[in-house]
């Protein structure tokens, strides 16, 4: 691990100001991803700003009937919160499907959104990676790419975003609230928070330099059955190959509305408005589900070892919709 200096920030604005004052600084919250990467020297910040003492560790009711989740709220606390369990069960289940008990006790809401890909080549500093070392190339495209993306890829990068939490938040239309070094706040819909790799896979979010996540707001819960389905190589403590966060309203015979967000497929949680529009009012049949899957998977492309994710996503979606309607 490269050497660094360390200080604690006392508020979100203080953290942003400290970051603006230190080139090469990084925020550290739970540290469960950053320290792992620092040990491998994939990350080498020269200064760490501890954001565990910003006073943003609560979950509050909003006047609109939603929840505001402070950036420091631990994944375990968020998953166990009675309001989340009752009204946003898809989020609780997504969190509980991620990592281990120990890691969930450390990992934070803001940090979870900012975690890096688990692409093997991003972690392996002996291999080219445009995300770790821009311009060096992508070893994954022609390499062992079983866990990597099939949607939204670019010739520069086929990494996936590893979060389960973010997939559920995408289905719930969460909004990320930030503070910049001048104390100005900004609300970023989660759909616009993460970026596709394009020509700059090293830039993963639309946060600006020094901008700090202060909270994540959940709008009032949408009506319908909430499901989080995670398909993975082990029954526990493994990243998703494919995951689906679904909120499905139906009358038994027809789908009234469906929100469908997918993990494990792309550089960001994947959601396709056309697929949801096609399902609205459609009969609750396998034909409807497969038509929706066609729309979700438009443009999907495998890279050899991950070709299986395309049919896996299709079948997982059909299974989730069947479960939503039939219980």
């Amino acid at each position, binding site marked *: *691990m*490269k*050497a*660094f*200096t*360390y*200080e*604690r920030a*006392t508020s979100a604005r203080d953290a942003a100001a400290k970051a603006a004052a230190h080139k090469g600084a990084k925020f*550290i919250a*739970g*540290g*469960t991803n950053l*320290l*792992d990467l620092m*040990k491998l020297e994939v990350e*080498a910040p*020269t*200064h*760490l700003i*501890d954001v*565990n*003492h910003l006073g943003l560790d609560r979950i509050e009711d909003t006047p609109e009937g939603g929840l505001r989740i402070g950036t420091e709220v631990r994944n*375990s606390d968020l*998953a*166990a919160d009675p309001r989340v*369990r*009752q009204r946003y*069960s898809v989020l*609780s*289940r997504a969190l*509980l*499907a991620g*990592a*281990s*008990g*120990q*890691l969930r*006790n*450390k990992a934070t809401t803001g940090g979870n959104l900012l975690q890096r890909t688990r692409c093997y080549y991003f972690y392996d500093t002996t291999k080219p990676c445009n995300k770790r070392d821009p311009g060096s190339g992508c070893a994954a495209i022609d390499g062992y790419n079983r866990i990597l993306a099939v949607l939204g890829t670019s010739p520069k990068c086929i990494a996936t975003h590893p979060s389960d939490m973010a997939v559920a938040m995408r289905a719930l239309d969460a909004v990320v609230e930030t503070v910049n070094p001048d104390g100005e706040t900004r609300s970023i819909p989660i759909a616009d928070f993460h970026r596709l790799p394009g020509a700059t896979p090293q830039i993963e979010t639309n946060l600006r330099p020094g901008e700090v996540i202060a909270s994540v707001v959940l709008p009032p819960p949408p009506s319908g059955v909430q499901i989080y389905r995670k398909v993975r190589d082990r*029954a*526990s*403590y493994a990243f998703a190959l494919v995951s689906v966060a679904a909120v499905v309203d139906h009358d038994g015979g027809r789908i009234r509305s469906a929100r469908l967000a997918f993990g494990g497929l792309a550089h960001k949680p994947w959601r396709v408005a056309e697929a949801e529009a096609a399902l609205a009012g459609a009969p609750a049949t396998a034909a409807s589900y497969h038509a929706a899957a066609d729309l979700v998977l438009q443009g999907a492309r495998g890279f050899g070892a991950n070709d299986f994710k395309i049919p896996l996503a299709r079948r997982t979606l059909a299974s989730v919709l069947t479960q939503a309607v039939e219980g």
Partner: protein
Amino acid sequence: MRLSADDSDFEGPTRRAVMAVGVGAASLVTTAQASSQAPATGSPAPAMTRVRLSVNGQSHDLTLDSRTTLLDALREHLRLTGTKKGCDHGQCGACTVLVNGRRINSCLTLAVMHATGEPGGDEIVTIEGLGDPEHLHPLQEAFLEHDGFQCGYCTPGQICSAVGMLAEAKAGWPSVVTADLATSPPLDEHEISERMSGNICRCAAYPNIRAAILQAAGGGVA
């Protein structure tokens, strides 16, 4: 009583000032390493920090490189070698300790982040703080009774993790295998397996580990 690597003269700068360890503050704590030359890569010289840790009810004052993980502070500086280093990347759980009663991987956190005082005030408990040969913790008793190990390397982490896990279950936390999130189901083997999945046992003593935890949870002998 274990050996302590405490500094005896922790009366210089206030802890609050020390915690504000910018580049300037690092030079405030004068050490040989802080004055060593920075590597050619441009990364800064090692930054030494005074850190007061509360471990198993005792306060320890240490001067640590800011890179020191909590795990390395416990093992290499406080000689509390009950906590094990397995993978050092948060995958195996051998380094699990309790911080303010919560189980965490001590390899994936920095010692400086757990300094006591305001803000913070973390209380760290390791396997040495749970019991000793004359006064075993109920989970230690249960692991012995059920032969919940083979080589024993993962055992301190398994036991600290189980202590934290039982507290989580007692607080009503669900798991991903909990059928109804509105309920707090009793711990059965399925729940225990899921909740302990962050602790790997390469000897695969899982059936006996599970039985030991089930007994300690009050679920009887499996």
